């Protein structure tokens, strides 16, 4: 039997996914051991698990190096890869939003030039281009994005908002919501056809778990 490979985003998302996969009947004991290994197998069911950086999950799946991936919707939207998004796993729920100082509330639409700082350059670009139909300047940052409006690098930021606590502590608030985010179960287009039965079987089992 050919192995079906599942790419998991390292970290908390992987832990939650492992629980779900176990409930769906896969043997994940190897994954629970603390180790530095990156590849694990479930010989009985013919599954392989690989641990990769979250932002790389869509790439592994698009190229078919992994048949299935579990990753946040933020990463999927940012990468815009051509994959099947089969299940909304529900966990890791949060929002993508435009945030900035509260003085800007209601004023963004009329501004001629907005500088937007974000880790999610493509999401920001698509939002302003297709939804807002505004030309903006996008500044790519790799972390601590909240800082940008405070030091005058940008007017607003586009970032993930969970509780809004970080924003509040830095004197920012959500000005516009872009979309809801949560973890997704994605499948490579070719794998879906070549391994249809086994993948759909897993999808059904996971869906059944999510309903309970």
């Amino acid at each position, binding site marked *: 039997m*050919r192995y079906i490979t599942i790419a998991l985003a390292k970290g908390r998302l992987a832990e939650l996914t492992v629980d779900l996969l176990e409930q769906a009947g896969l043997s994940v004991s190897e994954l629970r051991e603390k180790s530095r290994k990156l590849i694990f197998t479930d010989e009985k069911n013919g599954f392989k698990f690989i641990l990769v950086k979250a932002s790389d999950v869509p790439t592994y*799946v698009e*190229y078919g190096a992994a048949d299935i991936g579990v990753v946040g919707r933020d990463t999927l939207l940012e*990468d*815009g890869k051509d994959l099947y998004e089969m299940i909304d796993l529900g966990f890791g729920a949060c929002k993508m939003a435009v945030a900035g100082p509260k003085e800007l509330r209601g004023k963004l639409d009329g501004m001629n030039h907005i500088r937007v700082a974000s880790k999610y350059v493509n999401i920001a670009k698509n939002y302003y281009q297709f939804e807002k139909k505004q030309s903006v300047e996008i500044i790519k940052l790799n972390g601590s994005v909240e800082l940008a409006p405070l030091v005058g690098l940008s007017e607003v930021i586009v970032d993930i908002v969970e509780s809004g606590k970080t924003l509040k502590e830095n004197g920012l608030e959500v000005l516009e919501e872009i979309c809801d985010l949560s973890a997704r179960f994605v499948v490579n*287009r*070719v*794998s879906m*056809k070549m391994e*249809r039965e086994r993948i759909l079987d897993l999808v059904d089992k996971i869906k059944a778990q999510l309903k309970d």
Partner: protein
Amino acid sequence: MSNWKLYTPEGTSDLLPTQCAQKESIENSIAGVFESYGYQVVETPVMQYYDAYDTPTSKMEQEMLYKFFDNEGRIMVLRPDVTTSLARMVATKLAQGPFPLRMHYSGKVFRYVDSYSSIQREFCQSGIELVGVKSDAADCEVILCAMEALLSCGLETFQVEIGQVEFFKALMEQTGLDDENIETLRRYIDKKDTLALSNCIKKLVLDESIASLLLRLPTLFGGIEILDEIDESTLNEKARTALSNLRTIYETLAACGYEKYISIDLSLVKGINCYTGMIFKAFTHGVGFPICSGGRYDGLISEFGADIPAVGMAIGTDRLLSVLLRQNLLKEVSGADIFILSNDIARSYELATALRNEGYVVEQDTSGMNESEALIYAENAKIQGIMTVLDDCTVYVHNLLDGTKETTTIDELICDEECACEHCHGNE
């Protein structure tokens, strides 16, 4: 300024002798299948005017095209596909027929694809177009030909997914939605994103039977049985025709013995501005993208002035090559049959020519090797035998396949019994 002289442009690559021989060999087997079906080879220029890709049917996102200007300031593109230029060729030069017209081609196409991870921008395609017929049989022929071509290259496992864009379009006509909403629905169905799809459907005012069918579309893929799961009573004529076309194609291909390679996917809804009927894609293990795709495009040729139906497909030969390589299905490429060692090309020329005329691939030494150097070279170059010309008449033959060595004469090697040449008879 950086100097790029040592590099191939991004997304392109060189083909070294072995790879190139393998690629040519699969292109030849594919072309052989096409020609055995009566398809005749054609060519169109690699450069085309941009306008050909700016019609409603042939529209490509301008970000995907390689563009430049000619000396009159007109916008040119490197062709992103071959079909569009063939449509122009047919409409402007072959519109009087006779039809059906069967054409095949092999060549390069160019596309800017996703700038980060995907590295390929120059693609090799071998394809066919069956022009002037609108029938289930023509649709079947193109898919059959594609499958035979894949098999002829040694590919063993693959899946051909067949869809019907008219089915989706017919459903959309029944809903009366505007283009923007249709595009949103299409994108969610294409991604099998049932959650986003159901949210979107909830927001729209849709007939209940159509809404529930749309919601099920992403899961409607598999064998012929999925067609039985659709309640046709609520469908319009166009949708029913589309389903009946799919059923006929499936049953025909199954009857031809190809059932294990085919399946149906009603959520295959890509390229709906160009395609007007059956569409299909072929997949295999080891590559995350289709290796072959095609479909019916009855509106394309009319963009160039002649209303002629057509159906066609193209195989991505470089993708196929990489798949065959990964699945260990490529034939070993051998070197020359014979390497001739001689201190004088003129002296061995007659021998080399005679052997070449008999179909052997013959290399002549041009670097003055001695015998042991020749052995090392022959081994590396996978050459099968060495002939050392000793004098005007005698040759030392070393067969590297079985290790035998013998001394013989040139006459013996190149003359058959009835030969009356000076060599054969002069010494008697």
